[in-house]
């Protein structure tokens, strides 16, 4: 599957490169649906410029990125060439040497002879391919930097972030599919499924192309392309969340804790992903989710300790970068108190624009609780299906967060091919797709009418925002219904009958 994936990556990079060179890049970077005050590239440049002049980048309401982002971009922008060449070198070395490492790990775990391990050293072919790839990467990077000037070099950084996200999603869905198939096999063997639900079972044949479809849905999604061309840091946030999902599905609790801490550090909302990750690990380690058992609490505390510990370490590191706690009110205070009311595709700006100051605290609490509120009930309902819970949580975050952009929407939309087996149970496909398409088209139109032509007002734009979010909520609820319905049918049979023998219908209560 490497070849189609590589082809997909090349196509995606080409599309983005073409758009970067056209005049649309400037236009897209200024669209409010694509960039928000939290992740606009313009603001990153401002912050870096302020830093170079010796002023704290958080002074004035301009820059709302975390200090590690400052470090990343400062590092990238100044040493862009070296960074990319060296990182290409490292990735190459890793891919060349890690395979033997993995094999060695497996070999040790299964007690092979030590002499067998000698064959795990990177072979001749691998070394040659490593060498060739290095040369190719060097030439590519040099060529790229010859044609660009300084501040636009980070376009490559955003494209790489998109590539990393796609790759991480691809690999995680691959792992997930293997997991799903394995569980299905066990369930069939233990007769937990009813007799007439053969059509609902999943086969490897239909699941074969799903990872590729997931990567495609992410890379070729117009929302992602827009977000990448606008150079918004949403792409990097998505990459961190995708890597987190990958590490969780691979089973590495430490890495998953660290990446979740990094994602939470970027914007606080991924905190809600702690619950599904925890549920996944408990399931994997066969620890029952029972509040009275000590093994449950033991693992929960371990994972929570890793998560909170890495969060503390990362926050401490950020303090040492700039020497002050300025970033906490600028980043987290900004996310929670929503002072900037530029219109976006979210629900906050209109309410807060027309609200009296007296009620501001109350309403901001209410709106923020809305994001975190659905975690516990959904976790209880979706105890055995943590990956679906991750999908739902990401969707809820991107609908209800304080400054959503289309990049956030693109992340959960990438998961949709993984649930393509639910097609027969989805009820609102036509409605949802029409609403989402129409709203995406109407956003720029009504913005133009409101701001430039002056013949509409903010109510028009807000109506479309509301409709867009309604469409998203409907999409998520639909998938939720379909998933639960399929689970119900698996255990209770496809053709349901009421007690007196007539056909029954299933209702989600």
């Amino acid at each position, binding site marked *: 599957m490497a070849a189609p994936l590589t082809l997909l990556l090349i196509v995606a990079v080409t599309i983005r490169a073409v758009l970067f060179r056209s005049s649309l890049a400037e236009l897209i970077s200024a669209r409010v649906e694509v960039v928000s005050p939290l992740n606009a590239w313009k603001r990153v440049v401002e912050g870096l*410029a302020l830093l170079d002049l010796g002023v704290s980048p958080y002074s004035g309401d301009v820059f709302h990125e975390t200090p590690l982002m400052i470090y990343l971009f400062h590092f990238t922008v100044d040493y862009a060439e070296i960074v990319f060449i060296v990182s290409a070198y490292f990735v190459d070395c890793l891919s060349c040497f890690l395979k033997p490492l993995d094999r060695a790990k497996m070999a040790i775990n299964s007690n092979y002879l030590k002499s067998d*391990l000698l064959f795990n050293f990177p072979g001749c072919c691998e070394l040659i391919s490593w060498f060739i790839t290095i040369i190719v990467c060097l030439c590519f990077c040099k060529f790229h930097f010859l044609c660009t000037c*300084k501040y636009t070099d980070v376009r490559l950084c955003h494209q790489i972030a998109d590539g990393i996200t796609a790759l991480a999603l691809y690999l995680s869905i691959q792992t997930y599919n293997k997991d799903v198939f394995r569980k299905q096999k066990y369930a069939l063997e233990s007769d937990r499924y009813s007799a007439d639900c053969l059509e609902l079972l999943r086969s490897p044949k239909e699941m074969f192309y799903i990872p590729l479809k997931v990567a495609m849905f992410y890379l070729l999604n117009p929302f992602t392309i827009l977000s990448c061309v606008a150079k918004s840091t949403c792409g990097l946030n998505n990459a961190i969340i995708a890597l987190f999902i990958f590490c969780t599905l691979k089973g590495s609790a430490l890495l998953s804790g660290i990446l979740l801490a990094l994602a939470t550090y970027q914007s606080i909302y991924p905190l809600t992903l702690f619950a599904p990750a925890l549920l996944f690990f408990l399931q994997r380690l066969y620890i029952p989710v029972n509040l009275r058992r000590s093994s449950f609490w033991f693992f929960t505390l371990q994972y929570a300790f890793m998560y909170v510990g890495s969060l503390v370490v990362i926050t401490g*590191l950020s303090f040492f970068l700039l020497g002050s706690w300025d970033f906490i009110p600028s980043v987290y205070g900004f996310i929670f108190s929503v002072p900037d009311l530029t219109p976006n595709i979210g629900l906050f700006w209109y309410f807060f624009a027309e609200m009296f100051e007296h009620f501001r605290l109350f309403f901001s609490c209410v709106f923020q609780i809305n994001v975190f509120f659905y975690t516990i009930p959904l976790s209880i309902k979706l105890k055995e299906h943590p990956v679906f819970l991750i999908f739902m949580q990401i969707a809820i975050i991107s609908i209800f967060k304080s400054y959503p952009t289309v990049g956030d929407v693109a992340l959960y939309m990438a998961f949709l091919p993984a649930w393509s087996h639910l097609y027969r149970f989805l009820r609102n496909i036509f409605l949802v797709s029409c609403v989402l398409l129409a709203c995406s088209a109407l956003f720029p139109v009504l913005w133009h009418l409101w701001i430039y032509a002056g013949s509409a007002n903010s109510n028009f734009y807000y109506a479309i925002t509301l409709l867009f979010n309604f469409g998203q909520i409907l999409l998520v609820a639909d998938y939720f219904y379909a998933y639960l319905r399929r689970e119900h049918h698996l255990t209770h049979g496809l053709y349901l009958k009421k007690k007196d023998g007539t056909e029954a219908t299933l209702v989600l209560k």
Partner: protein
Amino acid sequence: MDYYNLLTTCAFIHLLVSIPYAYSNYVENKAGQFFSSGHTNNWAVLVCTSRFWFNYRHVANTLSVYRSVKRLGIPDSHIVLMLADDMACNYRNPKPATVFSHKNMELNVYGDDVEVDYRGYEVTVENFLRVLTGRLPPSTPRSKRLLSDDRSNILIYLTGHGGNGFLKFQDSEEISNMELADAFEQMWQKRRYNELLFIIDTCQGASMYERFYSPNLMALASSQVGEDSLSHQPDLAIGVHLMDKYTFYLLEFLEEVHPASQANMNDLFKVCPQSQCVSTPGHRTDLFQRNPGSVLITDFFGSVLLHDMKQLVADVSSQKPKQKDWHPPDGFILGLWTLILLVFFQTYGIKHLKHIF
């Protein structure tokens, strides 16, 4: 021996006693010279008449003179600075909030204490003439007025695009040399200056002072009629020319001047000969009553007050702030990469490496 001792003691005592007299003579001479120039306060009107990114050098010119004038003692309240001020925050500026005058970005003349009095579209011929003649509406704030009196020495510096007998303002209007001469005559009639130094750095700049007819005017221009003033060096990172040749060498000359310096106008006339400037700088002193050799640079460029003379200030702190790039602290880099390495080895297990190598 005794006689010799007595003689030396007497000479010594005589010297001791005479030193304060010599000093006071020196001070009196200085004071005399000070009062002979006739001014008690200094003003500067610095105008850049161009806008748009490719006229970066005119803004850098004006700001360099502004900096020198401020450094030599004229306070912001006595400087009327007129700029289009669209360079520092121009979206084409790769180093925002800076205007450089030397390539390799050695000297940021914009700094963080520049006070522009007329910015953007306020730099018009009408505003300029109103500032000079003082005929401003009563609501104009003090910072926008030239509140000079008959004991003021005024420095007027103009830069931009000009031609034979005119100077272009903001690409939309012109001021002619006759208008300027009439404005200066109005100033003389209203006793708004004691002596006036007029410096212009444009193409065919000498044409602008041809028509002056009021007394106590001295004028310098960067080029003669029929010649163009050339720009100095482009900066490849910024992409435009940073300064004009004449003002560049003028700035270099002024960097050597400190408040107690005795450099006079003859040295100023020698700034930027044709070998360096390609154009021939010109000057006009026939309307000036004093001998240019006795006119100090600090009479116009600085604000030397009487009490300063007693101290004979000699310390020069000509700062050339180096543009420093921010670097993250070393401890942070160390900590971050150590953590990354730790996590890497934790995940992949260091004992596995031992088995391979």
